[in-house]
């Protein structure tokens, strides 16, 4: 194992998280912000940290069915995140549109617009599922680093 590989193995223990709300009903966001990630299940023990700026982020959590209104803004924010980055879609909405699926305002399968690496289905997903999604994203991130 080279020294570079060793440093990469260290680096992978510091995934910083950024959330993009692409038209979510806020259910998944509440699960992410208040239950799954910070106070109760504490992903900080994995080295995760919420960051306010997309430029600091490594793992992006996208929630919501991607409404027509938000698609340009969401793509712009996504492009601001420096490589290497990993994208996690949280909730069932990014997969199929969920309860909004036949709406004219929704561009639902989000994969057409963003390169999604991990899907965490659920409406909203359980905190444990979100944490597992992040753990899988870390595995993907290790290969990209």
């Amino acid at each position: 194992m080279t020294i570079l590989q060793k440093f990469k193995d260290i680096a992978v223990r510091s995934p910083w998280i950024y959330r993009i709300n692409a038209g979510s009903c806020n259910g998944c966001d509440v699960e992410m912000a208040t239950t799954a990630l910070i106070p109760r299940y504490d992903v900080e023990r994995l080295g995760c940290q919420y960051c306010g700026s997309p430029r600091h982020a490594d793992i992006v959590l996208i929630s919501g069915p991607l409404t027509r209104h938000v698609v340009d803004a969401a793509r712009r924010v996504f492009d601001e995140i420096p490589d290497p980055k990993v994208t996690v879609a949280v909730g069932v909405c990014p997969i199929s549109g969920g309860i909004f699926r036949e709406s004219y305002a929704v561009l639902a399968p989000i994969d057409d617009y963003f390169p999604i690496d991990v899907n965490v289905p659920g409406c909203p997903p359980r905190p444990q599922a979100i944490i597992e999604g992040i753990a899988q994203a870390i595995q993907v991130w290790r290969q990209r680093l």
Partner: protein
Amino acid sequence: MSTQVAVILSVLLFPGGLFALTLGLALKGVDRRVAARLQGRVGPPLTQPFIDLVKLAFKRTMVPTTACEPVFLGAPLVGVVSMLAAAALVPISGLYTPEPILGNLLVVLYLLVIPGIVLMVAGSSSSSPYGAIGFSREMVLMLAYEGPIVLVAAAVALRVGMAEGHVATFSLVEIVAYQRTHSIFLLDPVMWPALGAFCLFFPANLGIVPFDIPEAETEVLEGPVLEYSGPALGLFKVMSALKAVVVLGLGIALFAPLGLSGAPALLGWLAEIAVLMVLGVTAVRLSAGRMRIDQAFSFFFKWPLLLSAASVAAIALV
């Protein structure tokens, strides 16, 4: 020649450079771990700040097209260099005496201003509106806390100077030596108001919660450092780690240098710094909410200024 070698070693190795950086990052790790435990969480490993730095080295640095690139990338370098120099200036009682050529208390105060200026320059050169808000808030906060810290320094300098027969002594070495032969200022009632003012100053200088108004994550998304990523952001982390060591070390040199020497002196100094970090930073940032910038401004012009002025007046009159 030997003086130059000693100066370079003290800036790059001990107590500046490598030593201060390791200590600063370790202190940050302790801070995050203790904070998590106080909130009933497990918390990150103690080495997390080191891991974060390694990670940032692997990321790409993005420069906004509208930013002024040389200033944008140069600002954090200036901050790191200023803090390296400042770390070599602060004596450790019984262990490290800075070369007289490096400077005295006044030089430390000037160097401590630079990280704030660097944040202002970084925020305004990034061309981000949040950076501009951070810039103006940093400037207001700095105007507020610089007055009290100058008076604290004046109080200490007057106290030592008048006891030794001249007006004021700004040499940190003499201040530490005086406290080693007499009593430390922590036990001197005349100095208590100045100590209180210093305890209010350093959270503002380190930018932690009641006074983290320029970088407020939830309001201005980390303000001045919003546009930084990768190694450039890492330099800001290095700067703030070094700054924590400088400011806490300065507090110890001014108010409570231990009368030990050799290895016990190092252990005692590390223990003092750790206690100051946990009580003065972690406990404060967990138990307070963020002030508004106008509240912080009027707060600093009320209590710390009053306290430090009281100390100076008491010393001058007694």
